[in-house]
């Protein structure tokens, strides 16, 4: 047992796929020199994943690649992948990419007796040696089984031979295989059982009338990996983007630096403002002043010389700007100074992972010091519950990682008290929660504000009355008596207190 081949390199060298968050799932990339099966139903993105794996090697790491196609002719792949910004023709001309086109051809073919796939192997090795390939894709094996439908055993045996020959060449191999259903056998023909070191599953499931694409690492031989499905999305000009679940790393440092909420009184209630890298949730029924708090937050940042980004999902730019003006804040001027950027769109305009990507891109582009989202509840309606939770986790961790002060709003369904689903999800993820409530006192309806939670800090526990006028929000005294802000809002009149 001391022969050289028994010694397994304790640290497998990693080959980056170019899908960043996926590489994180597999501890840095696919192990070099190993075979990975990517299984998925038709339309789940197998060819995109495979092409991106080659593209990343070619464009970023100077690792040429070979694409063996059993399904689409190479000309079709070239056209189909162009929308992701991949210059397949250019790479071929530069001898960075070679095709072995084994797609079905128009021919009369008859198989009698025994055969092998030496022809295929010879072509593959020829292509590999011609460009010095380091990566190879076989897309998809299922089609090969269909081609030789009467000789499944021969194909298994031959495929194993091809796989071991590729391994001997030191190639990192990615094979795709079709699945019949999203949650069932890993692949038709059980290809993974005999050739794969690693198994990755792509899914494109229909969940409450919405497509939800995910990627899952099922098996990584001799290596750790992160378990579970991770949302992915296909972005034109980029390819496949996995949306990382932040729970992977809880490494954000907590800063003790405070930033103003934009309201001096609220700053006092929170013992000096929000933390720099924290996320605050403002929860309240419609009309309680959430957008006002957001406006203050943005204006306060701008006044302190910071840059602020607002993503609006409920109101149009025009409405937001007009509201702000009525509270004495000129968004237009702030935008002109480059202190503020307001982006408004319908939640329904894109899927949740796309929203997240858009926010990330905006943040990376605009580099804001603070970010407000108004409101999360609007996003909630476009996604299934699990998807929304993943979105929130990703968003909050992203905000913290970039040391941005975040403010999100959530709208209560009922006018008084109550809890929205997003509140349930986000309350554990956010660092601070501010509740805005209608509170009835005798024959008057008041607005009340309360800092419910503030991680890592003392805060005022009173429920404070507040009013809104042309200068914005004015916090007043605490309520007398004991208003129940979680359910009903009827208080005894002050006379009885």
């Amino acid at each position, binding site marked *: 047992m001391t022969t050289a081949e028994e010694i397994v390199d304790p640290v497998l060298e990693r080959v980056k796929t170019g899908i960043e968050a996926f590489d994180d799932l597999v501890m840095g990339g696919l192990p070099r020199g190993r075979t990975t099966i990517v299984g998925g139903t038709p339309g789940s993105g197998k060819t995109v994943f495979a092409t991106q794996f080659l593209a990343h090697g070619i464009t970023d790491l100077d690792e040429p690649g070979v694409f063996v196609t059993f399904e689409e002719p190479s000309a079709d792949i070239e056209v189909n992948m162009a929308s992701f910004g991949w210059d397949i023709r250019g790479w071929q001309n530069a001898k960075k990419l070679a095709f*072995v*086109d*084994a797609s079905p*051809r*128009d*021919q*009369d*073919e*008859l*198989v*009698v*007796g*025994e*055969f*092998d*796939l*030496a*022809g*295929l*192997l*010879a*072509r593959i*090795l*020829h*292509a590999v040696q011609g460009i010095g390939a380091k990566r190879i894709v076989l897309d998809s094996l299922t089609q*090969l089984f269909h*081609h*030789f439908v009467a000789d499944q055993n021969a194909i298994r045996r031959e495929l194993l031979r091809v796989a071991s020959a590729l391994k001997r060449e030191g190639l990192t191999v990615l094979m795709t295989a079709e699945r019949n259903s999203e949650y069932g056998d890993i692949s038709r023909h059980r290809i993974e059982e005999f050739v794969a070191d690693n198994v990755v599953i792509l899914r494109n499931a229909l969940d409450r009338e919405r497509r939800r694409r995910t990627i899952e690492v099922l098996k990584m031989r001799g290596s750790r990996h992160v378990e579970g499905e991770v949302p992915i999305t296909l972005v034109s000009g980029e390819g496949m983007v996995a949306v990382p679940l932040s729970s992977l790393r809880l490494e954000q440092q907590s800063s003790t630096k405070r930033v103003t909420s934009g309201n001096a009184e609220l700053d006092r209630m929170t013992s000096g403002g929000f933390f720099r890298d924290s996320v605050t949730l403002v929860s309240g029924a419609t009309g309680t002043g959430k957008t006002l708090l957001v406006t203050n937050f943005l204006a306060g940042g701008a006044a302190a010389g910071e840059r602020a980004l607002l993503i609006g999902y409920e109101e149009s730019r025009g409405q937001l700007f007009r509201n702000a003006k009525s509270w004495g804040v000129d968004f237009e001027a702030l935008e002109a100074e480059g202190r503020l950027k307001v982006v408004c769109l319908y939640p329904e305009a894109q899927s949740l992972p796309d929203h997240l990507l858009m926010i990330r891109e905006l943040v990376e582009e605009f580099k804001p010091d603070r970010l407000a989202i108004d409101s999360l509840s609007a996003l909630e309606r476009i996604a299934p519950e699990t998807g929304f939770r993943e979105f929130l986790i990703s968003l909050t961790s992203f905000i913290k990682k970039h040391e941005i002060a975040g403010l999100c709003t959530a709208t209560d369904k009922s006018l008084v008290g109550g809890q929205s689903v997003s509140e349930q999800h986000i309350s554990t993820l956010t660092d601070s929660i501010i509740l805005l409530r209608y509170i009835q006192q005798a024959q008057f309806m008041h607005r009340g504000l309360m800092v419910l939670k503030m991680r890592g800090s003392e805060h005022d526990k009173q429920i404070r009355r507040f009013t809104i006028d042309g200068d914005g929000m004015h916090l007043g005294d605490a309520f007398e008596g004991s208003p129940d802000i979680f359910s009903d809002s009827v208080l005894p009149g002050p006379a009885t207190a």
Partner: protein
Amino acid sequence: MDPVQSGARPPLGLRLYVAGDTPGARRAIESRERLLDACGNRLDIEVIDILARPDAAEAAGILATPTLADEAIQPPRRLIGDFSNIAQVLDFFGLRKEDTPS
């Protein structure tokens, strides 16, 4: 294998793709001799070793070996595997087995 044989009709030109010197390749080449014996100058079979000429396999789109192919027609006809049944092979390529013209 120069196709400079003389004859009234041009012979049917087939290609036999094999991969190196394997038992399967040897069997295919034996069958080739028998096919040629059966047809005389009506048939010509070029042997292509794809290990030596992978580009020829690429151009023809060969996956499996041994493959016997008629690439002069569209779409091409290909027979894969075992060619020992001479009558069946000739039938597949549209040649009837007859006595070789003397």
